[in-house]
């Protein structure tokens, strides 16, 4: 005869760290949170790049601008995310905009620094060869300097993307934290599977976007293979 032995612990409500059941049961919530997370990240990177590129180009053309520009973005980068959201809150309120503006501010330093480093890294003889071929300033920038700098710029975009994915979670303070909402909900309900599964999703999302950008860089810029 088979005697089933049931340990006392399993009679209490099980609270496992990992549970696929959690994912299937909460598919809709996870989808909504993931969607917001991805959207916020993409918006941040696109807007951040649109702001950082002209700033870096100006600092490249007018050298004296570089120090104050990196100084200001550096100071902004030092301000902790929670404090930044707190300071933006009276202007933008409990909205996604608060998170978006904060995230763009953080991405700026990384994007500006890498763009400038990429442009500075263009070898002098390449520049001279372009000059010798009769390239003007504009064509030189567009046809020579930017393409050569692009791999370094993309490296910056990758770092900014991964950091942004992690930072979105802090948006929980204004109720717009993407997957961070689920992490926090799990914390409040002492629901371990929710905390761990949504945390793992954030990490997976960051690494997946990083891989995607790395692949895109290789495919679109075959000349980048030597640099990274």
């Amino acid at each position: 005869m088979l005697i089933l032995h049931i340990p006392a612990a399993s009679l209490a409500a099980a609270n496992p760290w990992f549970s696929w059941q959690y994912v299937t049961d909460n598919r809709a919530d996870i989808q909504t949170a993931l969607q917001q997370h991805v959207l916020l990240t993409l918006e941040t990177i696109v807007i951040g790049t649109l702001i950082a590129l002209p700033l870096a180009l100006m600092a490249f053309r007018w050298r004296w601008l570089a120090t104050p520009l990196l100084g200001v973005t550096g100071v902004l980068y030092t301000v902790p995310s929670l404090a930044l959201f707190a300071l933006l809150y009276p202007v933008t309120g409990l909205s996604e905009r608060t998170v978006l503006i904060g995230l763009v501010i953080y991405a700026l330093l990384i994007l500006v620094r890498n763009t400038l480093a990429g442009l500075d890294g263009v070898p002098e003889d390449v520049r001279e060869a372009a000059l010798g071929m009769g390239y003007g300033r504009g064509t030189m920038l567009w046809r020579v300097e930017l393409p050569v700098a692009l791999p370094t710029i993309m490296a910056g975009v990758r770092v900014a993307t991964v950091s942004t994915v992690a930072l979105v979670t802090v948006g929980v303070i204004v109720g717009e934290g993407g997957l961070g909402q689920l992490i926090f909900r799990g914390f409040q309900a002492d629901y371990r599977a929710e905390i761990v599964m949504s945390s793992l999703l954030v990490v997976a999302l960051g690494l997946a976007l990083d891989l995607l950008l790395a692949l895109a860089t290789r495919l679109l810029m075959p000349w980048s293979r030597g640099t990274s």
Partner: protein
Amino acid sequence: MVTRYVVNSLKAALVWLNDPLNWQGPQGVPHLTGEHLLISGAAVALAALVAMPLAMLLGHTGRGGGLTVVLTNVSRAIPTLALLTIFSATAIGFGDRATVIALAVFSIPPLLTNTYVGIRGVDSDVVEAARGMGLSGVAVLGRVELPLALPLIAAGVRTAAVQAVATATLAALVGGGGLGVVISVGFGQQDRGQIIAGGVLVALLALMTELVLSQVQRVVTPRR
């Protein structure tokens, strides 16, 4: 309209900062600031205990360069909030101990990488000369490589510490202490003045840490 709203918010922040009650007791600014610095300091110290010996070993033998890169990249992808939450939900429990351990995890990569790179960056001629003078491996590390790597190690400590002070703020979201409490309680009570006051205090603390440690870094970096 918006301008007046912002001005009123700033006034409310000044009112909060001017209230002597907010500067007393266990929820007062001085106590929370002390707690904040203590948590951050303990985290960096704990991380140094783990990272420094490892970095010295790797840097001295010249192995493990890839490990530091991978560690840095992976740690960037892990949200601090996630680790804080997970640690709070484990046996480590709520509060400052969970925070210290979570922050220490994030302090390891900058300490490890900078120490490793600093030691690796020492001119190999200098190391050869030290060996030629009959110095043992430990003596080369302690008397040649570490002193020469000091500027980069200081830069790593600065990065780790500023980051720890910044992220210690998040502890308040999961029941921990520190200055983040001012912000999270402010949001909980929808007290605009307190939210902004907290934001200003936390930002100032982070910037002060950066300022002080960049001075330290400058002092230990020889001028050329």
